[in-house]
């Protein structure tokens, strides 16, 4: 096991965004995190990273540190007007070794060059990130993930707004990470993609609806229940009586 949630409730100002979730995620799992908008998917990823503290319950990492987690933010969370080159952006993936103050060594530069090459970004090194298309920028962020060499990889909507060819290439990279034993949790909206590529799924609608093998989770009944729960959520609810 790499990650365990024990009766976790995450939220903002006492309103639960994720309500009483208990799951165990095994090392090497490739898992999709699905649910309607506002279901708490991004909040759960932030909870895994320690950026949102549980209102109740606990999240435990087994045999890894927070620094062993790599996170892909939603594309619109990155300020692409910032005057940074592709190479500088991808080099940030070495942070775990270089820290805030260390310099890039030869092996780091080689890793960055290899990641850029693998993502088809050779020749883009000096380009500013502001000049890239959405798909190219997503490749840059994946290259940074590749350089991070993390055991647990969290992807927040990695294919939103990305063309089919880039999606295919990035999906191929995710599958290669999975084959090398990494644990990957991805927030996704394309249910066909989830069924085709992700063996495990967690269907969330603020409350956990189903967790396990994707075909068992993504049933019509479960999805209907998820939508009803999400739409019926009461922002003026009384204090929770769950034990």
């Amino acid at each position, binding site marked *: 096991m790499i990650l365990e949630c024990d009766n976790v409730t995450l939220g903002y100002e006492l309103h639960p965004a994720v309500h009483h979730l208990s799951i165990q995620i095994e090392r090497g799992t490739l898992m999709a995190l699905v649910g309607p908008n506002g279901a708490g998917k991004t909040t759960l990823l932030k909870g895994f990273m320690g950026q949102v503290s549980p209102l109740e319950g606990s999240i435990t990492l087994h045999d890894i540190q927070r620094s062993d987690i790599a996170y892909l933010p939603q594309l619109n969370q*990155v300020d692409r007007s*910032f005057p940074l080159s592709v190479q500088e952006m991808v080099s940030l993936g070495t942070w775990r070794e270089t820290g*805030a103050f260390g310099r890039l060594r030869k092996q780091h530069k080689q890793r960055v060059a290899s990641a850029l090459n693998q993502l088809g970004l050779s020749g883009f090194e000096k380009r500013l990130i502001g000049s890239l298309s959405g798909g190219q920028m997503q490749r840059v962020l994946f290259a940074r993930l590749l350089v991070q060499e993390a055991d647990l990889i969290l992807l927040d909507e990695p294919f939103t707004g990305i063309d089919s060819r880039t999606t295919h290439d990035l999906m191929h990279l995710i599958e290669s990470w999975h084959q090398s034993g990494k644990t990957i949790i991805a927030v996704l909206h394309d249910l066909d993609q989830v069924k085709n590529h992700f063996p495990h799924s967690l269907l969330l609608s603020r409350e956990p609806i189903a967790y396990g093998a994707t075909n068992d989770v993504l049933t019509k009944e479960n999805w209907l229940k998820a939508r009803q729960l999400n739409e019926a959520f009461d922002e003026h609810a009384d204090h929770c009586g769950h034990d």
Partner: protein
Amino acid sequence: MQRALMGCLAISVSAAPIGVFLMLRRMSLTGDAMAHAILPGAAVGFLVAGLSIEAMTIGGIVAGCLVAVLSGLVSRLTDVAEDASMAAFYLISLSVGVLIISVNGSQVDLLHVLFGSALALNNDALYLLAGICTVTLFALAILFRPLVVECMDSQFLQSVSRLSPLAHFSFLVLVVLNLVGGFNALGTLMSVGMMILPSASARYWVKGLDMLLVLSCLLAIISCYAGLLLSYHVGWPTSPSIILILGSFYVLSFLFGMNGSMMSKLSKPKHLSA
């Protein structure tokens, strides 16, 4: 005149890079708000020790840091965004400052604090400016990477380190330090111009962060030199002269700069083949 030049050069090298980060963090007006926020501290220093640089500087630093920390705390503990809480605190701070000076000082004193007097810089003020410049450059060198990542992709910084709040608050302290240093030479209201105008002008000429930092410093240095010469020969006050030179650079830049200026938008050069 030599002291004025030395002091202005020190604050140029120090404040211009801070201004680049203020602009990139979309906090240009925060610099202006902080410039107003240091006023009551300087006023209390003036009240206690007269026109003493040490007392006014310490007062300014305390008031600026207090406003920065309080606005940050209020925005984190309540539903109000940081820009709104900073606006509230700087306005309170400014009114307290003007009140203290108006009740206890003369209009001349108020003008000195608001608009500075580079030609009156003494040895103590020069040491202070040199000290602030040194501290700022060392701190920027140390905080450079966290600051860059915090500006561009704060979630990544939060995922790989716990330096995000440290980078944010340290940066605000550097803003306060430079404003306080600047008000001795340029006054509280003008010192923010030394931060914002060089970086806003440089953005029209260069694209990379390193060149942005270098060009901002160069523009600030040239403006100080030219502004002091203008002030000497025409008999104008120093700080508006320096800021007007910087303002001229800005106008030229947004008219004729190479990146996104009005000229580059209006001219339609032949497009490339691929």
